[in-house]
C-alpha cells in the first residue's frame, strides 16, 4: 500500500483557486435582511436609558428582552451575556441588533440611537481573580528551603489577534419552526448547544451548518456562539433570513484574542547547577468575561516545564477579570505564553550561573519514562536529542552562536524546544466531548464521512478522507466529506486542541475498519465509533495530577535574525524546524501547518502589536495591526521525524498548534543574542529594543 504521507491534490483546492468556493459572505437568500450590532462605547457603565428613533417599516431592534431562554452564551463559564442588560463591561459589548433590508438605513438608525450611561470604575489591572488553580509535583517547599540559590524572572506577553482573512459571519433563517444557522465556525455543536440554551428549545429545533471557513486559528471556536445566539433570537422574532457579517474594524475590536499574560518564574538551583524546584505564577488577562479562559489557564500551567523534567514544582495561575474585550482561544491556547517564559528563563538562569545555556537545557531535557509536570508519564519515545542535533546541523547553530556572540555583530540565532499535548486537556476528551463519528456507505458504494470536524484550511478533509481511503482501500473519489451539518453528523467535538488528526482521525480509521468488515456491495451500510480513553490515562481534575494528554508532539525551531544598528528593525533571515508529529497524513498539508504556524509564532514574538488604552483596542484594521507579509516571512527548512503513536491513525499525532508555540522564544532568543540584552517581554519591537539598548545592564 502507498505511504499515507505522500501528498495528494487537496480536495478543495480547485474550487478555492477558481473563486467558485462559497464563503458565508457569498450566500444570498430571498427576503434576506442584514443585521448590525449596536455596542457599548463605555468600558464599564450602567445603562440608564436607550433612546431609539422611530423605526421605518421592516426595520427591527433585537435585545435581551427578546431572549426566550437564558441570557448567557453557554460555554464553560456561564458569565458571558448574549446581549448586555443593565451593565456593560467592555467597549464593544453588544447591546442590541438593528435588522432590516438596507444597510444604509440600518446605519442611519444606528446613528440616531442614543444610550445614556452612568460610568462605573473600571479595572485594567491583574487584581480581580475569577479562576485560581494550583498544583504541585514532588515536594517543592522543602526543596526551596534546602537550596537557597533562587533565581527569579518575570515575563510578559501581549495580545495577539487571530486575523483570519475572512471576518466572522453567519446567515440564519427558519425552516418551518426550526432555526437554521450557517456560519464560519470551528465547532458546530458548540454553536448548537449554546443556541438551544438561549432559545430554551429542544435540541432538534436548532440546525447548525458550517460554511467554508476562511481561516480561524481558534478565533472561531467560542466566539461564533455569541453571534449564533444573537441571530437565533433575531430570526425567532423577525421570521426572515438574516445575515450578520462583521466588518474588519468590528471584528478586530470585539472578537476574542490571545490572553496577555504575566508569568513569574522562580527556580531553586542545586549544587550541581541544576533546577531542583520551579515555582511559576501565571496571570492571564481574561477580559470582561471568563468564557474559555479557565481551560486556557490549565494548558498554560501544564506547559510550565515545557520539554524539561523538573522534579519539584509549585504552579499557580489566575484568570483576572478586566474591563476589556474577552480573550479566548487562539492556536496554542495558553502554551505560547508559558513556553515563551520557560524558554527565556532557561537561558536567563544559565546566564546568571555563567554556564552554557545549551548544555544547561540538555541537562534538563525530558526523557521517555520521566514524570510530566503533572506527575503523569511520558510513555512514548522522545526523540528530542536527535531532533535537536538535526536542527543544529542544518542551521549550523553552534558555529553561529560562537560568531554572533561577539557584541559588535548585530546578528543572532535562537533555538526553542517545545511540545504540545494532543487533544483536550485532562479528562476533556472522555468526560466532556466523548467524540462520535459515523460512516455511511450508500447503495452506490460511495462512503460518506459524517463527522463534525471542520476543515478551516488546515486540510482536515484531505487527511481524514485519506485515512478512510487507505483503510478501506478505495480511491478518494469514492469518498465524500461535506461541511458538517448537525442534522447529519454526530458530535465529533470541536475542531480545536490539535485533536482532529489524532482523535477524530483515529475514530475514522476504526470506523473504516468496521465498515470494511461489513461491506456489502450495492447496499447501504452505516457504522459508528465513539472515543474511549485509553485505560492507562488517569487524570484528577481537582489536583491536576496524572496524564494531562494521551500523547505529545515535539518540536525544535531555530530562528536567525539581523537587527538593524540604526533603526533596530528585526530582519528574520531563516527558520529551521524539526518536528515529531508521529506520522504525517499528508506531507504538503503538514508542511503548510509548519510554515503557517512558524509565521504566526515568530510574528507573535517580534511583529504583532495590539494593546488597549483605557479599555479601547488601539488597532483598528490590518493597516495598524501588522501581520507578516510575503516580504517579512523568512524562508523555512522543515523536517519531520517519524515516531508513530499507537492510537493515532497510521501513528499520527497533533500538528496544528505545535508549529506555533516555539516561534516566539526562538525569535526572542535570536534578538537577545544580537543585541546582548535580556528580553523578558514580547513582542520585541524596535521601540522596545531601543529602550533595552539605552539600558546599561544586561
Amino acid at each position: 500500500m502507498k505511504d499515507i504521507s505522500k501528498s495528494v491534490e487537496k480536495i478543495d483546492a480547485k474550487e478555492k483557486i477558481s473563486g467558485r468556493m462559497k464563503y458565508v459572505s457569498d450566500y444570498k437568500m430571498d427576503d434576506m435582511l442584514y443585521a448590525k450590532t449596536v455596542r457599548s462605547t463605555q468600558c464599564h457603565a450602567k445603562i440608564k436609558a436607550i433612546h431609539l428613533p422611530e423605526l421605518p417599516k421592516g426595520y427591527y431592534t433585537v435585545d435581551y428582552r427578546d431572549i426566550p431562554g437564558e441570557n448567557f452564551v453557554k460555554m464553560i463559564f456561564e458569565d458571558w451575556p448574549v446581549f448586555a442588560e443593565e451593565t456593560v463591561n467592555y467597549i464593544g459589548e453588544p447591546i442590541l441588533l438593528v435588522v432590516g433590508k438596507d444597510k444604509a438605513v440600518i446605519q442611519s438608525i444606528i446613528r440616531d440611537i442614543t444610550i445614556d450611561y452612568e460610568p462605573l470604575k473600571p479595572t485594567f489591572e491583574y487584581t480581580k481573580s475569577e479562576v485560581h488553580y494550583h498544583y504541585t509535583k514532588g515536594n517543592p517547599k522543602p526543596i526551596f528551603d534546602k537550596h537557597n540559590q533562587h533565581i527569579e524572572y518575570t515575563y510578559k506577553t501581549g495580545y495577539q489577534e487571530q486575523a483570519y482573512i475572512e471576518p466572522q459571519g453567519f446567515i440564519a433563517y427558519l425552516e418551518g419552526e426550526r432555526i437554521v444557522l450557517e456560519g464560519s465556525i470551528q465547532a458546530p455543536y458548540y454553536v448548537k448547544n449554546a443556541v438551544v440554551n438561549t432559545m430554551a428549545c429542544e435540541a432538534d429545533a436548532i440546525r447548525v451548518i458550517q460554511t467554508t471557513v476562511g481561516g480561524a486559528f481558534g478565533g472561531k471556536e467560542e466566539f461564533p456562539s455569541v453571534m449564533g445566539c444573537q441571530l437565533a433570537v433575531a430570526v425567532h422574532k423577525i421570521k426572515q433570513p438574516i445575515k450578520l457579517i462583521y466588518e474588519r474594524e468590528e471584528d478586530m475590536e470585539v472578537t476574542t484574542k490571545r490572553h496577555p499574560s504575566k508569568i513569574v518564574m522562580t527556580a531553586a538551583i542545586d549544587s550541581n547547577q541544576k533546577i531542583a524546584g520551579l515555582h511559576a505564577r501565571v496571570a492571564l488577562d481574561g477580559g470582561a468575561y471568563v468564557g474559555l479562559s479557565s481551560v486556557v489557564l490549565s494548558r498554560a500551567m501544564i506547559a510550565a516545564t515545557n520539554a524539561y523534567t523538573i522534579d519539584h514544582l509549585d504552579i499557580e495561575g489566575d484568570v483576572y477579570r478586566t474591563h476589556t474585550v474577552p480573550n479566548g482561544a487562539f492556536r496554542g491556547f495558553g502554551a505560547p505564553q508559558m513556553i515563551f517564559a520557560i524558554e527565556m528563563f532557561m537561558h536567563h538562569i544559565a546566564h546568571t550561573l555563567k554556564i552554557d545555556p545549551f548544555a544547561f537545557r540538555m541537562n534538563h531535557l525530558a526523557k521517555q519514562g520521566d514524570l510530566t509536570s503533572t506527575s503523569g508519564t511520558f510513555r512514548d519515545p522522545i526523540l528530542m536529542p536527535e531532533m535537536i542535533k538535526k536542527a543544529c546541523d542544518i542551521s549550523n547553530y553552534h558555529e553561529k552562536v560562537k560568531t554572533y556572540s561577539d557584541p559588535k555583530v548585530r546578528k543572532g540565532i535562537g533555538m526553542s524546544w517545545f511540545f504540545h499535548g494532543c487533544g483536550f486537556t485532562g479528562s476533556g476528551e472522555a468526560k466532556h466531548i466523548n467524540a462520535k463519528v459515523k460512516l455511511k456507505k450508500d447503495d452506490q458504494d460511495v462512503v460518506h464521512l459524517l463527522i463534525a470536524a471542520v476543515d478551516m484550511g488546515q486540510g482536515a478533509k484531505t487527511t481524514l478522507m485519506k485515512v478512510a481511503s487507505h483503510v478501506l482501500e478505495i480511491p478518494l473519489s469514492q469518498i465524500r466529506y461535506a461541511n458538517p451539518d448537525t442534522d447529519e453528523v454526530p458530535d465529533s467535538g470541536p475542531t480545536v486542541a490539535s485533536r482532529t488528526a489524532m482523535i477524530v482521525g483515529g475514530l475514522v480509521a476504526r470506523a473504516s475498519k468496521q465498515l470494511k468488515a461489513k461491506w456489502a456491495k450495492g447496499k447501504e451500510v452505516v457504522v459508528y465509533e465513539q472515543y474511549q480513553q485509553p485505560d492507562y490515562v488517569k487524570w484528577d481534575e481537582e489536583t491536576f495530577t496524572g496524564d494531562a494528554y494521551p500523547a505529545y508532539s515535539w518540536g525544535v525551531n531555530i530562528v536567525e535574525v539581523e537587527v538593524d544598528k540604526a533603526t533596530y528593525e528585526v530582519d528574520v533571515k531563516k527558520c529551521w524546524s524539526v518536528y515529531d508529529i508521529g506520522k504525517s497524513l499528508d506531507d504538503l498539508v503538514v508542511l503548510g501547518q509548519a510554515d503557517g504556524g512558524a509565521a504566526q509564532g515568530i510574528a507573535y514574538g517580534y511583529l504583532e502589536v495590539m494593546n488597549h488604552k483605557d479599555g479601547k483596542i488601539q488597532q483598528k484594521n490590518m493597516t495598524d495591526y501588522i501581520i507578516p507579509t510575503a516580504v517579512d516571512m523568512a524562508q523555512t527548512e522543515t523536517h519531520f521525524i517519524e515516531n508513530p503513536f499507537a492510537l493515532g491513525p497510521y501513528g499520527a499525532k497533533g500538528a496544528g498548534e505545535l508549529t506555533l508555540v516555539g516561534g516566539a522564544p526562538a525569535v526572542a532568543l535570536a534578538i537577545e543574542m544580537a543585541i546582548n540584552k535580556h528580553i523578558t517581554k514580547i513582542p520585541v519591537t524596535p521601540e522596545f529594543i531601543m529602550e533595552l539598548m539605552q539600558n546599561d545592564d544586561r
Partner: protein
Amino acid sequence: MTTVKFTLNGKKVTLETDISRRFLDVLRNDLNQTGPKEGCGEGECGACAVLLDGHSVNSCLLPLAYVHNKEVMTIEGYAETERYKVLEEAFIHEGSVQCGICIPGMMIAAESLLNQNPNPSETSIRHSLSGNLCRCTGYNMIVKAIQRAAQRGKGLW
C-alpha cells in the same frame, strides 16, 4: 444615476447606478462575481483584487466611476485562460492553498506580476505579493508555486 460602461471578463457591461459605489460591491452584488472577497475593506489585504487593464488593483478602494471605459478581469474570467491553468497546477503542486480566502487575490497578483516580468526573482515575487495577506500559509508555498508557474508557463507571459 449615471451610466458606466466597461468590459468585464471580455464582455461589455453597462450599468445605471451611483458611480461612487465601491467597485467590489458592484461586482459582488450586481454582477454576481463573488470570487473577489472582502477581507479588510481598506485596501490592505488584497482579497478583493481584480485586474484593471492587466494590473492588480484592490476593488474595495475603487469607486465604480474609475472603471469607466476600462477592462476588468475577475478571477471568474481569469479562470478561463491558459495562464490560469499553469498557475492552478502550480498552486496545487506546491500545496499553496489552505483556507483559500486569499487565493483568488493571490492568483490576480501572480498574473499581474508575471505579465510584467515573466522571470521574476524570489525577491520580486515576495514584493509583488506584499499587498496580499495570507494568514494560513506563511507565503513560502505560494512563492514556490509562482516560481514553478513561471518556469512551466514559459512563452505564455
